[in-house]
């Protein structure tokens, strides 16, 4: 029997060790990919085996389960190409750090967070585009995040912690790092970081929120509503798929900020909503990766049409992900949103209307993307090739997870009750969320 104290260390250690051992097969991309996927699956098994021994935080243990799953689907969906090797190893490193931040208590968790943001900043710099302004803004934002996380780790003060949170779980105007990470990072990193960083942000927020002054909460409240609208507007204007997905998810994350700031607590429903939005966005990024693998990294989505008939498997999976992304039932995004709506005390005002507009806009820009890619005339000059086995597996897994999130009871991942301070959140779990 392992001492429960060491379980978090074990969970963090498996992927980190896996990353280290991965260098042994560095020269063989296929083997490295298989190894990385195996490590994430072992990590998942370890998480499941130790789930009931972990202390539940206010948002539950959902992220601890979702992180290895997201890592494995992100790795599965990649082509076995030399150029992606570093991203696979970094995915394992990020997984280890993420599990560590979520399960190991202070001061290790905050220090690991500083390190994680530091590595992300470095990666953004490494892959930055000097001709694209937001790239620099992204580096700057993550740099600021690293600084704030470092200060918070040393002093435990509320405002730097909150700043780190708004950079991790993007809130306008601190969203550039998130947008740059989703659009600039290579290989398996964007579909994984889309869950990893916001999940850590929400996890940190649970401890930070009670310390934040009311004035600051009001500012967050306003920024969240502006962000929901801003993200939706930006997503509507995009023709580039990764930017569209980045801004679309930003809009949904802002909605989450609005709920969390209003309730001043992080409920399991918030974790479900965040997990679903992030997974769906990651799934759509993986689906877009399928297209990029076939038609090049700089492919214009407007030039690719009529995929429904020649790529039926891709079309079905992409449509299901789109349905989930639009917030339709029975997927997790809808279940999470309903959970948040039903457990919050709302008033008839402009704020719920803005949330509704953000939700409606998602139907517009996501459906537009689906129509653009899947329907219309088939191009005779294009060679169509349906999804490969590993791509199929990764997309099916994402759909299945998001579907399961939509149906599973909220309290499934609540975990063992913590020793102090989190009783109130359990009371809000109701049968209908």
């Amino acid at each position, binding site marked *: 029997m392992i001492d429960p104290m060491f379980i978090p260390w074990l969970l963090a250690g498996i992927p980190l060790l896996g990353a280290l051992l991965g260098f042994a097969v560095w020269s063989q991309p296929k083997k490295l990919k298989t190894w990385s996927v195996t490590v994430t699956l072992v990590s998942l098994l370890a998480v499941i085996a130790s789930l009931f021994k972990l202390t539940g935080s206010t948002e539950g243990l959902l992220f601890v389960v979702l992180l290895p799953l997201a890592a494995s689907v992100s790795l599965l969906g990649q082509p076995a190409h030399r150029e992606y090797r570093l991203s696979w190893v970094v995915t394992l490193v990020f997984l280890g750090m993420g599990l560590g931040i979520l399960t190991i208590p202070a001061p290790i968790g905050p220090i690991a967070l500083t390190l994680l943001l530091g590595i992300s900043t470095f990666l953004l710099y490494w892959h930055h585009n000097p001709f694209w302004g937001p790239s620099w803004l992204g580096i700057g934002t993550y740099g600021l995040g690293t600084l704030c996380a470092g200060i918070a780790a040393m002093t435990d003060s509320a405002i730097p912690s909150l700043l780190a949170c708004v950079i991790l779980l993007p809130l306008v105007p601190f969203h550039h790092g998130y947008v740059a990470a989703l659009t600039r990072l290579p290989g398996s990193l964007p579909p994984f970081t889309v869950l990893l960083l916001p999940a850590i942000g929400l996890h940190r927020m649970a401890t930070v929120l009670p310390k934040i002054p009311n004035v600051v909460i009001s500012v967050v409240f306003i920024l969240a509503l502006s962000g929901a609208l801003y993200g939706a507007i930006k997503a509507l*204007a995009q023709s580039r798929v990764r930017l569209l997905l980045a801004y679309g998810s930003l809009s949904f994350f802002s909605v989450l900020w609005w709920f969390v700031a209003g309730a001043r607590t992080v409920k399991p429903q918030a974790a479900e909503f965040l997990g679903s939005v992030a997974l769906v966005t990651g799934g759509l990024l993986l689906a877009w990766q399928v297209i990029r693998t076939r038609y090049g990294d700089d492919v214009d989505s407007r030039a690719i049409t009529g995929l*429904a008939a020649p790529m039926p498997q891709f079309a079905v999976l992409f449509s299901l992900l789109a349905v989930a992304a639009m917030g339709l039932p029975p997927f997790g995004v809808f279940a999470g949103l309903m959970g948040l709506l039903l457990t919050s005390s709302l008033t008839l005002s402009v704020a719920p209307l803005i949330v509704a507009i953000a939700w*409606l806009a998602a139907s517009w820009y996501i459906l537009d993307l689906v129509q653009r890619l899947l*329907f*219309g005339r088939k191009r005779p000059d294009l060679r169509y090739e349906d999804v490969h086995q590993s791509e199929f597996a990764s997309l099916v897994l994402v759909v299945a997870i998001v579907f399961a999130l939509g149906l599973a009871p909220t309290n499934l991942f609540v975990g063992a009750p913590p020793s102090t301070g989190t009783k109130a959140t359990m009371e809000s779990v109701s*049968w209908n969320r």
Partner: protein
Amino acid sequence: MLAVILVPLLPLLAALIVLMGAEASRQQRAKIAAYPIGAAFLGAIVTLWYVATHGPLTVRFYDPASPATLAFPIGFYVDRLSAVMMVLISGVGTIIYTYSIGYMYQDPHDRRYLTLIGFTTSVLLCMVSSANLMMLFLFWQVLSFMLYLLAHNHAHAATLDGAFRTFTLLRVGDIAFLSGVVLAYQLYGTFEFQALFAKAAEMPVTLSPWPGFDISGPTAVTLLLFIGGMSKSAQFPLHVWLPRSLYAPTPVHALLHAGIINAGGFLINRLAPLFGLSSTTLHVAFVVGTVTAILGATMMLTQNDIKKTLGFSTIGQMGYMIMECGLGAFSLAIFHLIAHGLFKATVFLNCGNIIHKARQDPESPQTDPREEEKGFSPLTWSTGFVTTLLIPLLILLATHGVLQIPLLESQGAVIFLFFIWITSSQAILTLTRLRAIASWKVSSAMLLTLLFIVFVYLFAVESFTAFLYPNPDEVAAYFQAADLPNWLFDSMVVMATILTVVSWGYLYMRAHGHGRKMWIPDWVERLRFRLYVVFMNRLYMDELYQALGRRVLRVVHKIDKRDARWTE
């Protein structure tokens, strides 16, 4: 009676039979799949018999009292209303599916299409048998997406555009519905229908969204839910999706017009006790329904395409149905939607043949070669007069005395009767194309048919109302809740009477002259032409929505450009 869940599951099984399997057995599987759908229809009939004799059925896969269960509370509540709807949907679904096997034969998309028909039928059946508001909303939304899938064709740009707009407009309604669901839960803390109705009746809640404006809880909830119903039932101004979805295969329209579009009427009936608590919502429904009925019918008259004509006819009929709900005649709306659903499904399934025949034979449809009366005929004139003015009065008094329906005490019933009169007069006069054939036989047949139809209709409606709502006090309470102020009601009746009689006279005189010359001011004629063009172009609503969409996108791109300039 867990077996009741087989009714929605059997069409789903049919969809899976069509979807899964080898290409070689595609046709065979398509035919085999008709049996589960037919079995669902038989199951629905058995369910109707069971609930009519034993009372409502409830099957829950969750415990409402439990603090944590499945995310979506899945359960089935089948009462007489649900059972009637299930029979209608599964019956029409069976006919449409069977018809579609032949209609879509050798079509490259037949597998997808037949699967969607099976799946949509299943979703509709789940929706009408939902045990709670949450499940109803869940299937309500899935239906929006099913409609999008059914209405689009991969390779046809106009169809895709129409399907996109259809889905966007339906989502607007879904958002209002979502708001209503959330508000209902916030105010009453439950999704269970019976508990919701009881709490809404017990707890008078008043909301103040902004200073100086108060609204009662039931009114706020039902108004939001009603907007959701407006979008599905194509009520003005959310009706534009219906004509735009007409590119879809003809059997889709049969299903759409017989099943999906009735969702609004069903919603109001399912939540009748809640709607009955809000006179304001019922009045809004009355106004929206009346406007939709008038505009839909007028636009129908000016269309030159058979499918569009039928589409706008449906909009008019749905307006009529919602108007009935607004009058408190909830059961009547269900009666109407069943009758309309069967009628419209038949017409849609036939219209493909008619188009085909018209293409083969340019003379089709044949005109009646009989000679018409050139001069003024007292017989035809008096027939029209009796039809439009005397018979309604006779019916009013007879139904009050003979059938013991308290029509004189109920505004809603009087308005309903009023519309029976207008519709039947219009139907008879339109069917005979205002021909001045001076024949006692024709006149007597017309009058007797009219009398017979109206009495049978009233009797059937009364029996149906007693079947759906066995408690007469409940029915009376809905009528009472829908009562308009007396002065408004009286002036509406007087105005409508004058308008109808003058219009009938005008149409009669104008049809062939009939030996009378009618002077009409020039400006009226000019206005008539202008209005004709406006209605032929469907009030330019499509263009208006397109302009709105373009405007929104222009603003969006402007904001995006400014933001990009700032970040560069």
